[in-house]
């Protein structure tokens, strides 16, 4: 401690030692300097990691699609336009996307559809696989959830609940304008019909939310998919044609 400090400290014992005076310009320069360096560093990191992040996301989605559609080995992304389906251009980012999955021989084995709805805590986002031959849902995977661990997250981990979506009937009515039977909720152990989703004890709200979001999505999407089933079936061959052209 210097002598002047000691005098200052004894003169006003309650006030802590004041830092030396610095001009405002210097403070602004410091903050701006740190800001600019931070900005450059962030842009650099963003550019460096972006390709890997995009690749990870695409891979995670692809894995999920092949999980929910058994026997799939390749996929094409379609988007609806005025009730018709067309192949999505790689540059597009439409809100509605259907992933048509094809087997080894190029035949259509199913369609993966994203659906989301309000759960107990936050939006629950799922991907389900649709088999156009049996007109039923054959696979189910939760993409994003913030439901309570141990209770609401059973929609992912409870095998009995996931089994609801091994053969869930979503066939169209005779005139093809809506579902023959809406997807409805059944109390645990009370499932009778193939269009019922059996709930989870202790996670009623979340399992009901999943049933509701599947029903809402299926009511819209099944009609479009069935009306455009030929586009989907031909998708693999016609895209190869365009590639050759």
């Amino acid at each position: 401690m210097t002598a002047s400090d000691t005098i200052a400290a004894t003169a006003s014992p309650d006030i802590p030692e004041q830092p030396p005076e610095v001009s405002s310009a210097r403070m602004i320069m410091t903050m701006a300097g740190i800001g600019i360096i931070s900005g450059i560093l962030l842009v650099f990191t963003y550019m460096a990691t972006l390709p890997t992040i995009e690749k990870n996301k695409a891979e995670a989605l692809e894995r999920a699609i092949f999980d929910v559609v058994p026997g799939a080995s390749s996929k094409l992304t379609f988007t609806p336009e005025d009730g018709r389906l067309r192949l999505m251009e790689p540059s597009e980012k439409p809100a509605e996307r259907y992933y048509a999955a094809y087997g080894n021989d190029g035949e259509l084995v199913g369609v993966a559809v994203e659906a989301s709805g309000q759960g107990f805590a936050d939006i629950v986002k799922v991907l389900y696989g649709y088999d156009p031959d049996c007109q039923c849902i054959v696979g189910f995977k939760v993409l994003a959830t913030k439901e309570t661990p141990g209770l609401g997250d059973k929609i992912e981990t409870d095998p009995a609940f996931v089994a609801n979506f091994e053969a869930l009937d979503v066939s169209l009515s005779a005139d093809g304008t809506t579902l023959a039977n809406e997807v409805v909720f059944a109390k645990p152990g009370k499932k009778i019909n193939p269009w019922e989703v059996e709930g989870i004890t202790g996670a009623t709200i979340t399992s009901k939310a999943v049933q509701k979001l599947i029903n809402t999505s299926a009511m819209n999407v099944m009609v479009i998919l069935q009306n455009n089933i030929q586009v989907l079936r031909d998708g693999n061959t016609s895209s190869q044609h365009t590639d050759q052209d």
Partner: protein
Amino acid sequence: MATPAASIQTKTSSESADNFIKGLWRENPVFVALLGMCPVLAVTNSAINALAIGAASTFVMVLSSTIVSLAQKLIPKQVRIASYILIIATFVTVTEYVLQALSYEVHKALGAFIALIVVNCMILGRAEAFASRNNLRQSVLDALGMGVGFTVACLSLGTVREVLGNGTLFGFQVFGPEFEPWIVMILPPGAFFVLGMWLLLFNWVKHRKEAAE
């Protein structure tokens, strides 16, 4: 912090060792200082999440302590807190991008808590109390020690909560199929119970040691 005259004369090597070790036990950020409770309570519902948040926090703390220590003469006292937060926030964002590139799954599990490392008072506390007034070597050692101490503390909560609340450890089954998970342990109240138990144990050991001396 008052430094007794005797310790000034001790060699630099033992000072370095002490700066590292004090974070593990004597000044452990979680069990002694009770800092950074938000991630400690919220993200330790499984061992792997605890390990990830611990590693991410350590990474941020070491890097920000490095910069704060190097720039201590350049940053005016009046704007130091704002500068530290800016530095920490930069490294947190860098960490978030890197983690997202390394593992999509871990990033998904940690969710919002990576961004919350910015307001972890442990990191700002080390920048203000240590890195801004010590040299680079000591600051990095201090940050490493505190980071490892924080990670160990998170892990001690995470393992107990995962084993009791889910019957698994790092995702592997620990008990047989008859085990009924104690779900409350992976819910928020479980975090408080387990933290309380660890604090009890920690203080009991400390008091016994003091009584023995």
